């Protein structure tokens, strides 16, 4: 049939199957037709749960993150219809289908760019980018850097499971050096990238990290990200129980967590340990672990966390601290103010209008030198 073979087809006559399909539109049930959500103050978690069956593997860390985000949403004071979740490709990128908000499951790596267009076009929307380590840092690495440096008011959650799950188990840009995977039977020779280092180097105004199974902390981070004006970047350590099971167990597992995870809290000294007796102190230009009470060390000797430091050096240093040399830091690394891209874009438009009045098509087409032919 010509329609199929050459791309210009039936000159608008349609065919039977299509005519029948289109005329049947009105008879299809209203299972997915929307209902207007209650106002922000009365929203509940259930209002954010879509009717779609969640299709992640049983036991996936993504469930915990989804559950948390849905739980936090009613507390943000934002109308449901103003929320947009944008994702790329990968397991985590199915996320928008499960949120009963506006959603856009886009193409691999490009979610930040799509979100940029949405936010610029309508700054009143609350726009969320959901991405994974491969999506954000490999195929979408360029957009990661540039969306962050522009400081659009986006909430950017990276699910880091250090593996390619949807393609069944190849190494990712965050996989540990030497990791044996399906595509690297002799071990990777790729040195991994640290997402927080890259976010800070890209001038992110809000940087945080959490762990999928640390439900309460994750909720706090999501809420703080939503409230930050400007780009809010959260890395979430997320377990892939099929292809990289236990990737974070060495510090995230409940029994070892107190000794191996450092919870960063603004204005507080950096203390950790089951007995709250370990701390981080600066030794010259580098951090070191000390024990409170030994050699006369008190909490006063410890580094006090300040998320508002304009200079990103300390945040960067914290982002470089890793197990097993250091406790793995989680929490808000930095939260600084800078005008947002979309605000400045609107400001330039307002300034242009203030200067010369709203654009007139009549003036535009008659601009420059004109002449009349009689």
């Amino acid at each position: 049939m010509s329609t199929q073979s050459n791309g210009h087809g039936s000159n608008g006559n349609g065919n039977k199957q299509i005519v029948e399909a289109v005329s049947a539109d009105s008879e299809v049930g209203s299972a997915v037709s929307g209902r207007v959500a209650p106002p922000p103050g009365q929203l509940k978690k259930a209002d954010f749960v879509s009717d779609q069956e969640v299709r992640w593997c049983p036991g996936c860390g993504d469930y915990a993150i989804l559950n948390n985000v849905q739980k936090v949403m009613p507390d943000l004071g934002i109308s449901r219809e103003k929320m947009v979740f944008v994702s790329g490709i990968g397991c985590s990128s199915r996320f928008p289908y499960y949120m009963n908000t506006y959603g856009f499951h886009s193409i691999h790596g490009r979610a930040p760019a799509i979100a940029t267009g949405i936010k610029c076009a309508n700054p009143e929307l609350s726009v969320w980018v959901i991405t994974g380590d491969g999506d954000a840092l490999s195929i979408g690495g360029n957009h990661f850097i540039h969306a962050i440096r522009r400081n659009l008011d986006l909430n950017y959650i990276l699910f880091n499971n250090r593996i390619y799950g949807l393609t069944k188990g190849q190494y990712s840009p965050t996989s540990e050096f030497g990791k044996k995977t399906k595509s690297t039977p002799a071990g990777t020779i790729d040195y991994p990238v640290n997402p927080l280092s890259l976010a800070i180097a890209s001038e992110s105004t809000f940087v945080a990290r959490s762990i999928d199974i640390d439900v309460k902390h994750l909720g706090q981070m999501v809420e703080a990200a939503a409230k930050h004006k400007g780009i809010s970047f959260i890395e979430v350590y997320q377990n892939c129980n099929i292809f990289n099971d236990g990737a974070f167990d060495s510090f995230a597992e409940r029994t070892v967590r107190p000794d191996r995870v450092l919870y960063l809290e603004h204005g507080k000294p950096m203390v950790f340990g089951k007995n709250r007796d370990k701390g981080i102190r600066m030794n010259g230009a580098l951090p070191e672990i000390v024990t409170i009470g030994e050699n006369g060390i008190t909490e006063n000797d410890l580094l006090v966390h300040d998320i508002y430091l304009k200079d990103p050096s300390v945040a960067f240093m914290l982002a470089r601290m890793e197990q097993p040399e250091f406790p793995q830091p989680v929490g808000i690394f930095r939260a600084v103010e800078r005008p947002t891209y979309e605000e400045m874009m609107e400001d330039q438009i307002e300034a242009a209008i203030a200067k010369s009045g709203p654009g007139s098509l009549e003036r535009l087409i008659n601009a420059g030198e004109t002449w009349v032919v009689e």
Partner: protein
Amino acid sequence: MSTVIEPPVTGVEKNVEEVETVTIRFAGDSGDGMQLTGTQFTNTSAVVGNDISTLPDFPAEIRAPAGSLPGVSGFQLNFSSQDIKTPGDQPNVLVAMNPAALKVNLPDLEEGGTLIVNTDGFTPENLRYANYASNPLEDNSLAGYRVHKLPISTLNMNALKGNVELSRKEIDRCKNFFALGVLYWLYDRPMETTLNWIHHKFAKNPEIGKANEIALKTGYNFADTTEVFTTHYTVKKAKIAPGKYRKLTGNEATAIGFIAASQLSGRPLFYGSYPITPASDILHELSRHKSFGVKTFQAEDEIAAVCAAIGASFAGQIGLTGTSGPGVALKQEAIGLAVMTELPLVIVNVQRGGPSTGLPTKTEQADLFQAVWGRNGECPAIVVAPSTPADCFHMAIEAVRLAFKYMCPVFYLSDGYLANGAEPWSIPAIDDLPKIEVKFATDPATFMPYARDPETLARPYALPGTPGLEHRIGGIEKQHITGNVNYDPENHHLMVKLRQEKIDRAVNDIPPVEVMGENSGKVLVLGWGSTYGSITSAVEKMRREGKSVSSAHLRHLNPFPKNLGDVLRSFETVIVPEMNLGQLCTMIRAKYLVDAVPFSKVKGRPFQIREIVRKVEEYL
């Protein structure tokens, strides 16, 4: 300064001769300001009422080594008292600022044509750079031309030295205005338009403005008062359709066309783009018009540019992205996403020589297949193409109209020749422009993301922010009507057909192709895009000679106009001139089973009228 610019009148008697059409080419180093000189001559000629058509031709290198052959920059202008449609096959006049410019451009100059050379540029070093064994100004090799040897650099230096506080280098940069002054006298042009431009342009740098003004006026007076030229020429106002006109390049027309589309639809314009020759001027132009609410986004790459445009479309603005062929190659996956999500999107491709980096500053039409078929899967999009610089304005509006009405990507195929070429534009009345209706879904009780308009098959446009219409779209196949993720084989087959049928139905919304000349006969010359001027001029010329030739020009390339098959079958031979290896020709052969003849020219230059005439004559 008056002593310099008004030399004593010598009383030389000069003849004035009227001519109909003149083609001038200005050529020099890429740093010699030839594009500016040509543009100034064009503006002045337009304002005095001549019809005009231009062909800027510049190298990809910003400043190739001075005096070298690759560094030659040219600007060809055709101006006339008649209705003209091309920049002219052959220059009648060549202005050559150095030996390289002479070497590159002399083969194009008509026999017996006028040659104005800057003798100061003919240094031994420059002659060597241009591979001249002997000085062509002295070895009688230019005997077939009317040669005017002017020491332009020296004359310019003498005129300015001591009169302006500028370095020798800065003074030397004004020599193009001296040459322009000479040409203004030679073709009886007023200097006001250029003087106004100088005053405006150099308002913050009055010394340079003053120098350019002196150079221009001195050049003019030099030509008037010395015995170098005995005749000057007038070209009367053109007999073109009455109306108010301005001069416009294709890229300018494209930019203001999209602003007009924004005003006509009431939807703000969002332009995502990454700088690329020859499309960047659209970004520059749009970024100047913020008072229309235009949002321009210079993205980190081509992919981000189109993705941001898609995001803006999703949120209710006109999502527009612009680039050239290599950029489209990068954007194709995202364009497929817009096909799948059925969002409006317009992709401007200012085509240039390819493949790969190709000929960045030269024109070509080889991206038609890329627009129609260049994506994975069955992935149809509407394709339109403007035919002249001024037509860019109207086709920009058309692209936006179709994108909203059919909720789909629309390709807009311009090219380097249209983009940089200029012609007079008959300014339309705003009331005569089409209205663009954009409908949004608002009713939660009836909303289905992939329900369809029974006439157009467009799906509803539901903007984030609309209460009760929360829904998810994406690149995975969707279930008919509900828009849920769906892998069912029957559903996929239906959706593939629906997406194609939707594009096919746009045929009901586009005008039939018009035939210039008889509706049947021996030869039909079928074209698309920027070949319009050459094809139409050639066919008009042959028809005046009584030959059985007609022409038709396509502005809609997917779908084709409804009557195209009937038109093609009404002629013994269909010839399709294209600046590619026969892409449109292949498409019409496949669709209409007509034995059309391709006529290819892929040289980075537009067709000459005579080339088309010669080809058509083979079939008469």
